[in-house]
């Protein structure tokens, strides 16, 4: 897998993992914290509601005391006079005090007066269930001393009743206790609404003994007890409910009060986490993109370029070509190291080639000299066959020498010695060095302009090589036309022959070293030509088709742009 993709995948996986870890962490730690905060807040609200209830009892109790500790009442409980009833026990009086029910009980437990005031200001007898409770035991009305106060919820069949019971005393809070005054207030929907307005929260009630299991109260009933009188649970995404266990006046679990609260805190927590995670994702993306960009620009694309450059150097016919990267970072150092390694390898090869060349030149000298001696000794009268054999030896010595020269030439960097010349003079000199076959016509159309600065010796070799190649391509004879012209700062010289031409494959590979179509030849000729031309900053190209001849075109800058320079 490519490093780019690998890094990308690793970074994405890291991003996802980090986000998940953060998400889990925030869920557990942050959201847990917010949930605890919410629970605490809900408990406070429940307690606030309970204190409102407690205030209600105090208020009821104090109103009751106003009547219970009064001489008129103290007398009334004994004589049950009608006047007291007429004056004090009218429905409107109690309605103003928000009292729904009054019961006067004497010390013997007998009800002296009792009334249940209806909203329409009529009085009805007190409910039967209350009568039964009063007669069953003295919990509601027994006051052992003058300071005794009984408050609580009485579980009536119809409705829960908040009551306050006070001993009946004289004006100055003196006994003996002559019974009890019980006042009551029904815990109906109206009363609940009254509480709700005080605490600014919706309230609802359910019986503790209720057996239905579907509502949220079920869970609350399971959790609530006298030891744990408050319970909190979220109802849905928007509401959290706090529950309080209300015991009746007999200390038995009786009602469950529910306080509904909006989940502001929890929602704020959730919003914070979402914001936190989103910002984490955005930061992750920015970070990842930045890292990828830097990696791409500083490393990956440059590594690709290095690989590409290395390939093109590898393909180049110019052995002096190097990566030549500048910079001080690791990749530039690597490129430099590769360059110097190539340099060293090339030096080794060059030394080896020079050594082999020298070692071969000695035996060649011996062979050439021995042949020469034989020719001297045998003289003109030697047989044609012997002469032919001696010629073969001479030709092969010359050919071997050429291979050695090409080899050592190719393994050495090119050093140019520039001097002014012109296409015409170079072609002239080159033609002087070759034997033009009798059946080949050479037409020289080259001109004296432009003047160019070249290494004349090396350029001459290029020309000789191309001209000889064209002769080789015309074994049956033909025509070689040499032309020159000036184009955009270049001198262009074209060699067009009417020879056998080349296949497409040959055209493509003609300048590659060691490529040859000849039985004899190392394939260095055209490669060296290309190298020399390129060392001048010029170009060499060929156009040919089988049977259509070939045209070699040299393009040499008038002002040489030295390329693949010599370091030695």
């Amino acid at each position: 897998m490519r490093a780019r993709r690998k890094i990308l995948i690793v970074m994405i996986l890291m991003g996802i993992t980090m986000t998940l870890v953060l998400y889990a962490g925030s869920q557990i730690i942050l959201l847990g914290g917010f949930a605890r905060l919410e629970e605490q807040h809900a408990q406070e609200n429940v307690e606030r509601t309970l204190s409102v209830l407690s205030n209600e009892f105090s208020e009821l109790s104090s109103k009751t005391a106003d009547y219970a500790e009064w001489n008129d009442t103290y007398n009334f409980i004994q004589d049950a006079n009608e006047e007291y009833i007429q004056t004090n026990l009218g429905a409107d009086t109690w309605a103003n005090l928000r009292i729904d029910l009054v019961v006067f009980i004497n010390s013997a437990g007998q009800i002296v007066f009792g009334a249940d005031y209806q909203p329409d200001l009529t009085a009805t007898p007190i409910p039967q269930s209350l009568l039964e409770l009063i007669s069953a035991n003295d919990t509601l009305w027994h006051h052992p001393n003058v300071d005794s106060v009984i408050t609580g919820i009485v579980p009536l069949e119809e409705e829960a009743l908040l009551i306050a019971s006070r001993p009946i005393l004289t004006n100055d809070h003196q006994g003996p206790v002559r019974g009890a005054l019980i006042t009551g207030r029904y815990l109906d929907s109206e009363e609940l609404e009254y509480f709700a307005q005080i605490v600014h929260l919706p309230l609802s009630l359910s019986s503790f003994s209720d057996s239905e299991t579907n509502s949220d109260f079920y869970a609350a009933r399971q959790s609530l007890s006298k030891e744990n009188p408050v319970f909190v649970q979220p109802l849905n995404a928007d509401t959290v409910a706090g529950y309080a266990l209300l015991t009746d006046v007999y200390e038995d679990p009786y009602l469950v009060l529910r306080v509904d609260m909006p989940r502001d805190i929890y929602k704020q927590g959730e919003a914070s986490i979402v914001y936190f995670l989103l910002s984490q994702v955005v930061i992750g993306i920015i970070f990842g993109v930045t890292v990828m960009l830097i990696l791409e620009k500083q490393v990956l694309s440059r590594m690709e370029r290095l690989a590409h450059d290395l390939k093109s150097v590898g393909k180049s016919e110019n052995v002096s070509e190097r990566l030549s990267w500048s910079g001080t970072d690791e990749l530039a150092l690597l490129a430099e190291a590769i360059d110097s390694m190539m340099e060293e390898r090339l030096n080794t090869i060059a030394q080896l080639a020079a050594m082999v060349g020298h070692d071969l030149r000695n035996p060649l000298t011996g062979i050439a000299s021995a042949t020469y001696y034989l020719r001297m000794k045998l003289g003109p009268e030697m047989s044609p066959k012997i002469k032919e054999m001696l010629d073969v030896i001479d030709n092969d010595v010359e050919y071997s020498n050429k291979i050695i020269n090409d080899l050592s030439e190719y393994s050495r960097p090119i050093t140019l010695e520039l001097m002014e010349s012109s296409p015409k003079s170079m072609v002239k000199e080159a033609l002087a060095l070759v034997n033009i076959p009798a059946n080949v016509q050479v037409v020289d159309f080259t001109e004296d302009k432009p003047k160019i600065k070249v290494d004349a010796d090396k350029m001459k070799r290029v020309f000789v090589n191309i001209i000889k190649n064209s002769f080789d391509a015309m074994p049956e004879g033909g025509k070689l036309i040499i032309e020159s012209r000036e184009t955009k700062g270049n001198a262009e010289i074209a060699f067009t022959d009417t020879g056998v031409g080349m296949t497409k494959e040959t055209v493509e590979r003609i300048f590659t070293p060691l490529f040859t179509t000849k039985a004899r030849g190392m394939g260095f000729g055209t490669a060296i030509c290309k190298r020399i031309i390129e060392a001048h900053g010029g170009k060499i190209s060929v156009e040919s088709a089988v049977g259509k001849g070939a045209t070699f075109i040299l393009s040499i800058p008038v002002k040489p742009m030295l390329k693949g320079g010599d370091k030695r």
Partner: protein
Amino acid sequence: MKERARILVVDDDESVRRTFAAILEESGYIVDTAESGREAIEKSNKNFYNVALVDIRLLDMEGTKLLAMMKETTPRMVKIVITGYPTLQNAVDAVNMGADAYVLKPPNINELLNTIKERLQKQEEEKSYSEEKVAEFIQRRVREIEKEKPK
């Protein structure tokens, strides 16, 4: 009859020495060979040579160094450097050390023989310019020939 010119061939390669010697003798020269710089110096101290053909790389020293160490003679000995290492530096060194010609291996023998011939002619001309030197040369040659006679 004109004196036959004497040539010293200095090369560490035996076949080069033998073939050069054969050709040069066949061409009418008196040829002597040396395979090392040391041997060449010894021989040039003992004998007079008109021409020295010196390989630029010998087993015991650089041919250019040998050029400088060989005895000055009158007329001045023609020094031809012959090399399998055609580098610019070698050529410059050879000329600086007093080489008269610089020939690559394997040489074109005809050209080499022509070069030797031309150089010898020049030497001959130089020789005839100074009567005194000619006399001295004759005296020396006489002594040398007398020495050689017993052989």
